[in-house]
């Protein structure tokens, strides 16, 4: 592959995979609304956040092209989320005495 080709390298998803992801996102939204009525105690918020995380993963990997993007992008996003997670853990070690 020449240098120029590398610059303009096509990274394409087909129309159909986007529509599939959209369907999955809509179904997950339905699930999260349906499940919200049920009281799982402390797991209620965990369930909602878990579903939101799955939806976020779908958007990041397919809609935002991370799956077909160069590896360095995935590393960047992973590190960003890792630090975000560390902040949350530290925050709650202060407030809930985990």
């Amino acid at each position, binding site marked *: 592959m020449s240098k120029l080709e590398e*610059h303009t390298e096509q990274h394409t998803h087909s129309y159909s995979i986007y529509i599939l992801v959209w369907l999955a996102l809509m179904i997950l939204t339905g699930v*999260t609304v349906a499940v919200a009525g049920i009281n799982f105690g402390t797991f209620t918020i965990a369930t909602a956040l878990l579903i939101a995380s799955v939806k*976020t993963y779908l*958007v990041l990997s397919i809609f935002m092209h991370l799956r077909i993007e160069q590896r*360095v992008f995935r590393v960047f996003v992973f590190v960003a989320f890792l630090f975000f997670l560390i*902040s949350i853990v530290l925050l*709650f070690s202060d407030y809930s005495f985990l």
Partner: protein
Amino acid sequence: MSIIAHEHAAESHVHRDDVGSRMGMWLFLFTELILFGGMFFLYAVYRFMHQEDFHVAAKELNTIIGTFNTALLLTSSLTMALSITAIQKRNRNLSIFFQVITIILALGFMVNKYFEWTSKIHHGIFPGSEELLAQNSGQILFFGLYYVMTGLHGLHVLIGMVLIAVMTRLTKRGVINADSYVKLEAAGLYWHLVDIIWIFLFPLFYLIT
């Protein structure tokens, strides 16, 4: 003479780094993560401290409007992604069509938000109102966070709409085309981030019962 020849060579060479452009956009998105992240931290701490009040306050919010808005935003993310595939497949008119649909869906989201906010304000629930100040501190905090977080998110939706409208114009003029569409991709990345933030705002504000 050699300098002139060199300049000519530089002119004919197109300076483009699409990967670098997308990386720049992602770096910007990380700053957005920090901006909204700080607010999610505030939400987490206050919810932990005022669990009962948050549950009572959340009942005031309309789950149906919230769910409808979620569907609108998810669909607008779909059409945004489709517009990029369309331009890659050299189908300019289809790409423009998808971009316009994206803007219309975003407008629908904002119209819903407008009615939602105005109905809250008519009921006397807005920051500093007598009705709200008479409630428990947890409920005051819930609505404070509600207005600030959905407000900031709404501002992002507005900015996204303007951004996509500019992209539509650039696509019409042929600046964005099948061989150069990184601008549209960057706008798309921004739009999907706005979608992700709403994916978390929706259950945290509308679905705690």
